[in-house]
């Protein structure tokens, strides 16, 4: 299965910046790669090639998942369903499971999907505040 993720350097898998997600992600759901169960997860960072998320249940570190997301952009609500993605890492513990999934290029490159993913990426990129990453706005962070 091919990804649109560019070939990554050996020691740092992610070459394209991923942007911190925010509450404009109204929904992020994935199917469990093994059981197919639909799980609601917390989006952490995102770019048009993939998404990192935190789940409250263990997930395998490989396998194919389907991603469903709803994002409130300035232009309106973007809704993407059954986006194929491949699990690329999973770090589990008793506090939850931090995972990364790369969107599958064959599907992403068709139709409007890529432009919608890019729109989300741009919206998140525009909202990044290098001086105040977490919006604590007190010069402390």
């Amino acid at each position, binding site marked *: 299965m091919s990804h649109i993720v560019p070939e990554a350097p050996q020691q740092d898998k992610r070459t394209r910046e991923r942007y911190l997600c925010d509450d404009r992600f109204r929904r992020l759901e994935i199917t469990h790669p093994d059981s197919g169960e639909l799980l609601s997860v917390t989006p*952490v960072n995102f770019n048009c090639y993939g998404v990192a998320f935190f789940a409250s249940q263990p997930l395998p570190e490989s396998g194919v998942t389907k991603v469903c997301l709803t994002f409130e952009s300035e232009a309106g609500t973007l809704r993407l369903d059954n986006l194929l993605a491949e699990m690329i890492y999973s770090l*589990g513990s008793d506090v939850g499971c931090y995972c990364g999934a790369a969107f599958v290029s064959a599907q992403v490159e068709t139709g409007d999907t890529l432009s919608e993913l890019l729109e989300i990426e741009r919206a998140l990129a525009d909202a990044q505040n290098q001086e105040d990453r977490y919006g604590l706005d007190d010069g402390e962070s």
Partner: protein
Amino acid sequence: MAYDLKEMRVPVGDLRLGMHVLRLDRPWEETDFLLQGFVINHREEIDALQAQCEHVFIEAKVHMGDIASERLSIDPAADLYNRSETGGGAVARGKKAGDQYKERHAVGKPTTRVTYINKIDVSKEMVTARSAYDQARGMARDIMANIRLGKTLDMHQAREVVDECVSSVLRNGDALLLLTKLKEQHEYTAEHCMNVCILTATFARHLGMLEEEIRKIALCGLLHDVGKSRIPDAVLNKPSALTPEEYKLMQNHAALGRDVLMASPRVEHSCVDVAYNHHERPDGNGYPRGLPATQIPYWAKIVAIVDAYDAITSNRNYDKGRASMEALDIIHRGKGKQFDEELANEFIRCIGIYPPGSIILLSSGEVGIVVAANPKNKLKPRVLLVRNEQQGKREKYRMIDLIQSPADSRGNPYAITKEVPDGTFGVSLRNFLERGLVLGAPTVYED
């Protein structure tokens, strides 16, 4: 001293052993209880009350001293109740205990706040801290091993571990914090307990808790995962991701921790609280009981955040830990759902975006180690450059202070692109520390 007997309404999430239950929020006849009024002697009785009621009424003795109009304390059982809320037995001024309870529930933090300053330079404290850390990690390993063998928890030993660490954190908040960044691959559980103890003490210091409270909550941090000593080794140290069944088994550690601690003599009630509740979530989706936010003890909310941070940044048998900033990202995104929002914000402030010891990739392609945070601008720390533009070895290391806007070889000002996990680009923090990298000292190092 004069006292009054009073009836006090208590949410079932705050019930403690020793409390005298007078009545329930429903008729006794509608419940399983045989006695209409009893002293709670067993944890099972608390579970039964929590299963059948939302609140109960307990008997509280109210002491009225010479300054009765200003100070008020309640005992014996209500004092336990009060202590769990305040995390240290603070005395309210000019307020009734019920009001004090409500206020603490609403504010969720101690009313007394202490500002600490570093009493000793980090480089000097590092010597003591390193020895304390090694010794304490060994003791933490022994504690877990002894419980696994069926021995009683040695609270004296546990307090000794904690006191050494807390004293170091109080002298200087950075030395032990840095040592928590040196993650071993094969000693996760004991190391994690130690790190949560140290990080909890550091966070409690940041929150301005009283010294005595810091010692107590650090002990809670050390013992928060003590229940894992009852989880089979095959699951605990599995060299790959857990299956859903194994994960369920692992989740039992919270209740097992409560049992281990309650069976141990001279255990602080707060330790039982934290071990049992540190996986509860404000959105009610936590375990083991799925408590709502208002019923989760304040200290358990603190340890939950610290626990998550260390778990995400720690190495496992099968995977490397993630960077500090990724852990902060997760905590930030989990605010109000998995983590208490106000405490999560404070924790992010406490750790900082680029804490000393972070490995960072710069806009030039060079790689550096954060040597010291800049108190005026935490986004512009002092950095030791250890890899060149192609991430290869440098002939000479170079110290730069980003607050002074230094330029790279192309004349562009340096900027931090991102933080990467320890070990990335072949940069191991441990190697640099062992070779004498001292935090805060602008030294030039040879390769």
